[in-house]
């Protein structure tokens, strides 16, 4: 059974069978506009929570993506490197960024659930 949680910096994490898939939220892609470039962490890289782990660029500006929880990258999504607009079209699904093996399983539970993230967006 998978569960999705969110960060205040607008990343989502979906935990399924011990592997965390990370992406940016629909709110984030909407705010950024048309993406034209994505840079992802390579498999094998150890990431700490809050570390800059990916970069997305729109026509106008570059933005950092922060790693929601610590872990080792096991896979990244080449489809969004080849077609950055996929993140705009499918932020929550096909536009995922990378998968990692979490080093601290408890960290996931500390993130916001969907209802809390929705409420957080209202305050932004």
């Amino acid at each position, binding site marked *: 059974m998978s569960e999705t949680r969110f960060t205040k910096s*607008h990343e989502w994490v979906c935990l399924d069978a011990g592997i965390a898939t990370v992406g940016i939220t629909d709110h984030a892609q909407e705010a950024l506009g048309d993406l034209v*470039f994505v840079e992802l962490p390579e498999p094998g890289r150890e990431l700490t929570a809050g570390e800059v782990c990916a970069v997305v660029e729109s*026509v*106008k500006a570059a*933005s950092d993506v922060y790693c929601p929880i610590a872990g080792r990258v096991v896979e990244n999504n080449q489809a969004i490197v080849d077609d950055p607009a996929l993140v705009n079209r499918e932020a929550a699904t096909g536009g995922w960024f990378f998968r990692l093996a979490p080093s601290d399983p408890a960290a996931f539970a500390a993130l916001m659930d969907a209802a809390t993230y929705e409420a957080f967006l209202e305050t932004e």
Partner: protein
Amino acid sequence: MSIEIGPEVAETSPPKTTPLDLLHKALGARMVPFAGWSMPVQYSAGVLAEHLHCRADGCAALFDVSHMGQASLHGSAGTVALEALVPGDIQGLKPGRQRYTVLTNEAGGVIDDLMVSRLTPDHLFLVVNASRRDIDLPHIEAHLPAGVTLQRHDDRALLALQGPGAAVVMARLGPAAAAFPFMGFGPASIGGIDCLVSRSGYTGEDGFEISVPADLVDRLARLLLDQPEVGPAGLGARDSLRLEAGLCLYGNDLDELTTPVEAGIAWVIGKRRRIDGGFPGDIAIRDQLQNGCARMLVGIRPEGRAPARAGTNIVAEDGTAAGTVTSGGFAPSLNAPVAMGYVRRDLSAEGTGLRLQVRGRSLPARVVPMPFVPHRYVR
């Protein structure tokens, strides 16, 4: 993630709004502060679509550029007075013609770049950058002789209609302006509204800039947007279009520490002015014309897909410091990143290999001619 819309000027007071503020919001614009103004960075179509619309056959984009400063210089001695501040040949500017020029400082640096148009022998019409209007206009005023006056046109708005379809739209609504040659200028009625129109722009495409009384601009903008060729475009597309066209942005590619020779716009210096001088910084600028300068603004194509933004360090292939990117981003019409920046003169030749330091990596790039996308001005 960090979400930022783009590099903006620090704001100190609430931004001013243009007379089209309500229209922008009705069109789904995302408004951002820019040089003290609240301006649309994009509409609902988005920067990419707006950019590509402006370059598409039979299409035209409409920009609100009312934040730019408009002014008239009145008086028969105005021409000579302005020539004392710019290296351009203003005496040679005929009625009905427009010219791009720069205000220079004593070191030859650029105070601003501007458009100068001649309405009559005694009346010049100026358009200056929004970010510099409060510097330029007092500077000009401080150098005027008796009998010459500078009239600010804060009661006028400015639209830019740009793209391959702009002439078709103008032929329908303002046939007098549609007959203007490139860099032509004059009064023209558009849809029954009296305007001052130039055949120029900031996109590399054919097009018009339309000065109109502020209280009529909403009517004119809606009339233009009603034309099937026309869609609104924001400052985001304006920036990517001008970058592809290799046109300098004041504050990025031009400033008080760069000369027109370094910036690759030495063509703004009139033949007579090269010989006679008589403008601020003439000694430094004429020296550079004769002997070259230590650095030059060049076009740069990064090899991969990663854009190199303004501020990116440029190094030579031997690892020595080469210069800095002053404008950089993604070129939608090329589907690739492009940049312009100042590099050492020995690295400024076309084809020279460079390295761009982006996020701790050294990305290969090369010097290329500008514009990145060919200009399509009317001839």
